[in-house]
């Protein structure tokens, strides 16, 4: 019998599959198609302290085997989130990962504190890598900053943290190493790649916010490499994200070195995909006589 449990920073997930932040609304219509209680973990869209409206439309745009988004993280703000949504999420009986961000290190620390105070979050994911915020990506690009922010947040919260990193850097494996040395309990690779589309009729950028983040199957080979190149450098677990559209893509991610996987924009294309990924992983393990996902992690290296 296959056991799908995985361990991320001391938290046990009943399977290695979760949504990538910002691609699944728990309290919305998706949960009638794929119920959140089947997930390895619930992961929220990134939360800020204050409410935010998000960027001006158009916010999305189809690209070859992918999409650009410049959503810009609309959020109800942490107070409303804690009051109206977190209790609901905590009620699903699966670990809750709250994705947080802020404009300053102090913001990050404050929101981490507020979330910790609720006792309802199992893990915090630091979104250090959103290409749609003014300086969103900079956290994950500047080595000193990255070290400092993680260090500070670790000092101000007891919840284990996942540092979500940007692929738009010289070498993501070095950034992951820095995240680890600063105390991160896991890393999430990758966030979207900065990209853009130009409307050749209007001769203007298509997106309201000029550029956006590319994700989807198009970037899967890049994400697999990011994970593969990082795996041997660090000893904390990797949550592999980027272009997963099927269980096969998820298995690639695990073989490259991921302990768990996040499914992003493909939730939009096939709202049942996360269930298919969970089943596919289970079948693959059984057919190939593996006991659990942990036996697969990083196998492509050996």
């Amino acid at each position, binding site marked *: 019998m296959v056991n799908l449990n995985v361990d991320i920073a001391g938290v046990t997930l009943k399977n290695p599959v979760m949504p990538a932040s910002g691609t699944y609304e728990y309290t*919305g*219509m998706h949960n009638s198609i794929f119920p959140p209680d089947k997930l390895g973990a619930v992961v929220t869209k990134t939360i800020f302290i204050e409410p935010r409206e998000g960027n*001006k439309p158009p*916010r999305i745009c189809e690209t070859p085997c992918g999409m650009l988004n410049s959503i810009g993280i609309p959020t109800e703000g942490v107070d409303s989130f804690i009051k109206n949504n977190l209790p609901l999420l905590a009620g699903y009986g699966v670990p809750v990962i709250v994705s947080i961000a802020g404009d300053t290190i102090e913001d990050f620390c404050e929101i981490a504190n507020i979330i910790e105070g609720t006792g309802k979050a199992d893990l915090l994911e630091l979104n250090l890598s959103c290409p749609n915020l003014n300086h969103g990506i900079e956290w994950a690009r500047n080595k000193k900053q990255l070290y400092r922010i993680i260090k500070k947040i670790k000092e101000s919260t007891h919840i284990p943290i996942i540092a979500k990193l940007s692929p738009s850097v010289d070498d993501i494996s070095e950034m992951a190493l820095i995240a680890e040395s600063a105390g991160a309990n896991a890393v999430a690779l990758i966030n979207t790649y900065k990209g853009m589309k130009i409307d050749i009729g209007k001769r203007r950028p298509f997106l309201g916010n000029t550029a956006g983040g590319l994700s989807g*199957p198009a970037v899967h080979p890049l994400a697999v490499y990011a994970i593969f190149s990082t795996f041997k450098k660090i000893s904390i677990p990797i949550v592999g994200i980027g272009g997963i559209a099927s269980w096969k893509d998820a298995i690639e991610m695990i073989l490259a070195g991921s302990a768990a996987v996040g499914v992003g924009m493909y939730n939009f*294309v096939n709202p049942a995909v996360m269930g298919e990924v969970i089943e596919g992983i289970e079948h693959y393990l059984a057919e190939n006589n593996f006991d659990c996902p942990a036996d697969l992690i990083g196998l492509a290296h050996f």
Partner: protein
Amino acid sequence: MKPKISPIKPFYSEGRIIEQKNEYAGYLDLLIEDKVISRYGKPGQFVMVKGWHSNDPILARPFDIVQTDSANNLFRLVIKITGRGTELLNSLKTGDMLKITGPLGNPVKIKVNENIALLVRGVGAASVVYLAESAKKAGVNVYTFLSASTKSRLVCRDYLREASTDLNIATDDGSEGFHGDARDLLEQHIKKLKPDSKPGRIYTCGSKRFARFVSDLERKGLTKGYVFLESYMACGIGDCHGCAVKKKNNTGYFLVCKDGPVFPVNSVELD
């Protein structure tokens, strides 16, 4: 505003193409067999459809539910061929399968005792057929004003004739019906109606000019106005926050899929 969440939660399932027609050049009329939309789809709601396995193009496409027939598990879409996705749908054959997410968006509520007018242009006609039919069934007068550049673009004309109490046609070139602007036609007609049979609400779709006109009517206190909005969509179910449209006076955004697709005309920016 209507409730934020569709009363019937959407499904993700398959439908089979039963019939395709290209009666109007450049438009596809699809009759689809399924067990969800045919049964639960309501006027004003839409579906996300993907009819190809490839990830290029990757996203499903949104279309309004034009008719449903729950007894026979059938529903209808009317699609304007504009790009790669609609071309792919147009190349499908009878018997081919579609992946469908829906029903989506908030149904339009029909008030008994309140007549309605529909002012539509081009493929915008597809949005209101189901609404007309249901309203008429509920005993409400449905005054429909269908407009197009020319006769051959009067999409859904027959469906609307059947579904409306009264169908009025305007073409820019006079090739059918009134020669000129459907707004004038509507004003003329409404003037002639007795006060108690005048429409309490007007729904419009397919033209920004029409939307502004309806907005003006409402501001003048003549009727309540509603507009069917479109926006680029990735998910259709409120996950992606991609389909944002500006609220009136730039006070933030609505999501077309979750808050709409039908909006009180004066609640949104009609830029």
